[in-house]
């Protein structure tokens, strides 16, 4: 099983994702430069966090036009698994691979802190291995993580079970207080209708080793790995 982690100018969580997949989980993982036209032999693609192109104009707006994103689109259209984290989520929304958009946090401030996530759907390659009643504790670090979509889109996200994660408080309640950025319906992560493309603002790669104060993020990578193992195309 092989992973590719995209690298745009300004990506800065690329190495962190490589570290987790390679050193924590032990899978071959390579960086994929934004000027590449193919995802090669990768079985899954991670779009990491950071400030691609400085986040100028709108987050993710420039990165989505890079050659590699054409390849990612094709890969996703063919059912390939793609996970966008933070800036990766923003890029996927800009590219139209996920619905909605991520706008400025309502506090207008960048926020770096641990949040609690409720798993809204276990029916996805990104959440399949997370125990039923478990809420995750994972850090966020973003200035534009305020998920916005129109009412219709929100309805269809809910109808199709596309919401993956929602911000909750320590007790597991879905409150406004628990919402760090003003996202609609406390949304922290979603997937597409086909369920092979996922995006989330929190950083599971920063929560995959106990030495960093928590490893709930591992469950997300573990889900991805299990889903890949079960993919019929993979021996």
């Amino acid at each position, binding site marked *: 099983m092989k992973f590719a982690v995209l690298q745009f100018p*300004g990506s800065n969580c690329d190495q962190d994702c490589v570290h987790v997949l390679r050193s924590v989980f*032990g899978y071959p993982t390579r960086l994929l430069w934004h000027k590449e036209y193919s995802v090669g032999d990768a079985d899954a693609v991670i779009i990491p966090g950071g*400030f691609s192109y*400085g986040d100028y104009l709108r987050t993710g707006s420039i990165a989505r036009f890079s050659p590699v994103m054409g390849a990612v689109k094709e890969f996703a259209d063919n059912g390939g698994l793609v996970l966008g984290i933070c800036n990766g989520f923003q890029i996927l929304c800009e590219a139209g691979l996920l619905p909605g958009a991520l706008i400025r946090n309502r506090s207008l401030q960048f926020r770096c802190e641990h949040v609690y996530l409720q798993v809204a759907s276990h029916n996805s390659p990104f959440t399949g291995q997370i125990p039923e009643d478990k809420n995750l504790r994972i850090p966020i*670090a973003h200035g534009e993580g305020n998920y916005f979509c129109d009412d219709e889109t929100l309805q269809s996200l809910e109808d199709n079970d596309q919401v993956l994660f929602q911000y909750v408080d*320590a007790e597991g309640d879905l409150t406004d207080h628990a919402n760090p950025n003003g996202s609609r319906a406390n949304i922290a992560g979603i997937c597409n209708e086909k369920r092979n493309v996922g995006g989330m603002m929190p950083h599971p790669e920063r929560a995959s080793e106990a030495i960093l*104060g928590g490893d709930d993020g591992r469950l997300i990578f573990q889900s991805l790995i299990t889903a890949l193992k079960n993919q019929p195309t993979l021996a």
Partner: protein
Amino acid sequence: MPSDPAITPELVAEHNLTPEEYEGILELLGREPNYTELGIFSVMWSEHCSYKNTRALLKGFPTQSPRVLVAAGEENAGILDIGDDLAISFKIESHNHPSAVEPFQGAATGVGGIIRDIFTMGARPVCAINSLRFGELSNPDVRRLFRGVVSGIAHYGNCFGIPTVGGEVYFDKSYEGNPLVNAFALGVLRHDQIARGAAKGVGNPVFYVGPATGRDGLAGAAFASQDLTEESAEHQRGAVQVGDPFMEKLCMEACLELLATGAVAGIQDMGAAGLTCSTCETAARGGTGIEIDLAKVPQRSPDMTPYEILLSESQERMLIIIEQGREEEVKRIFDKWDLPWAEIGNVTGTGQMVVKNHGQMVVDLPASKLADDAPIYHREATEPKYLAAVRAFTLEGIDDLDDPTAALGKLLKWPTIASKNWVYRQYDHMVRANTMVNPGSDAAVIRIKADSIPGAGNSKDGNGDFPEKILALAVDCNATHVYLDPFEGAKAAVAECARNLACSGATPIGSTDNLNFGNPHNPELFWQLKESVRGLAEGCAAFDAPVTGGNVSLYNQNPEGAIDPTPTMAMVGLIEDAAHVTTQWFKDEGDAIILLGEPLDAEDALHGLGGSAFLQVLHDQKTGTPSRCNLETERTLGTTLLGLIQSGLVKGAHDCAEGGLAVALAECCFSELEGRNTPRFIGAEIDLSKLKSERLDALLFGETLGRIVITTSELDSVKAVERAKLMGVPARRIGTVGEVKGAALKIKSTTGEWSWEVARLHDLWWNSIDNAMA
């Protein structure tokens, strides 16, 4: 092109050069400088670049140890060995005046500048910290500066992708209008990756990389070396420098990639005095000369004069000297990263810094004289008059407390003591997935893993048997104490750093300092500087933490007078084993609370209340001789604590600083947030009735140095106390960690017993700055 103005005494003065200095230039050149050359001397001989007022003092710093690979002053930053062929490079630098004028961009470019210093050494920057000073938050203009500075640091660091893992913030009237912004960065490299800022190899081509040069921050170095007045802020020549962290991130990646090819003969960032400083310093270090043609330098506007191009401080630019014949590598790598580059000249053997414009000579100066022969001044120093009153202060008029209940709340709410979460939650402190202890404990702790080394992260194989390292970082300076006693206060700043490192389980290995002072021509202010440097030097020597580099920022004043003397000290330590990483908060109910160190200094007539937060907050008095700093005691305290931590006895450790023992205990009751809006509290029952003290206020809030609160399991408590005593450190059990449910801090003394709801104290402490900024 308009012709250059004639050199008149007025023009010389405008360039901040004294008539004597101008005489020196005439002598050095044997002729009159032209206008551009005058500009060059003005920046190269400014305090910022030449340290002309402080160089003599700085000689007193300890700069050597077996770990030192590159010592202070040799290069852009020092380098220390951390074992297994690995090394670190770190440095602190100020951006005070630019931040006063334009807080957001000033602070942002300050972070950018220090990061450049680090990757110029060949190291990959892996973390940042900062030290900030502002006026009081009740002043709306102070809030504007504070907000701007913090978001500027956040903007640059977050976007660049460097975790800002710690820092300090103080609020005091003396910084009104003249905030201090000291930024620190640390990078990692292998021994064989050390890069040099020297122009080696006659004939080697000189490259300029990075964005085009504009009229940004013209003569900023000179500006930093003037008193900050309304006028100088208004008339700062040139445009405000705007930082582009995205560009810098690319520039760093490209430079590290280029360095790995072995094609680089020398590399230097363009910081203060941009092209001027980088060309003449590289030539001076290389013992060579350098010749460039300005026509080849990328420019943002078509009509820039040589003077402007040479003195511009446009950001994110580097000067790189390439081994002849390997020019293609620069082209390949910088094109890959879509970065502008230009070949602008070459290394010569003449010893001269020669600048041409379209082939026409504009500057011809002896490089090493320009870089190294700036005048050196031994300024007059006289003890300030205010110190007589400080020393005369007694506690006579200060009634002791009957009930400390309200006082503790007031102190915790005081912005200087209150939680700085409003600040650090805006910083990405976890990017790079290395941060083991986040902001909020005594020191930040990060691990160094394979992808921290330049080049290693890109290798195809896993990280293998990479020997992970763990580092701790702290930055400290109680400038009130320095103001009241510069020598002792400076020593105390070093001791506090060392204590904070010890509390996190680390042994100090090196330090870097930022001297923020007023006008050195004022003998009283110069005395503060001189005494502080002496204190820092003694302190660093005592902890075997050689100074590997630093920065001087003088002329920090507002119309009311100078800032409190602020010799900011940052220290780095090594932690041997992940199991030794220790945080400040209480861990489990029933644990024993032990105080290491003498509760009160018997020889201190003020019992630790001199210059204390308590006197400032509750009695509105900023005076009194502060607690003495006994370096020998502090050193023993540190090694003893480390010994206890390494033998697995210690569950938590927190030193006593501003606000004294009571504030330290309260802080131990608040752990780091578990999650958003989710604090974790734990109570404590403290019995101080066995401690001899004439005054309750001194016992609870006095700032006697050399004290650390630790916790151990009940089972280990006797052993810990005995071991400490055996090492010569006073130690006594003072209480027990209490319940989580309805957590309360209870303190008993000979005169009474008081109880505080931890949640309530936490609210005052946690939300104070938030509320002030709302």
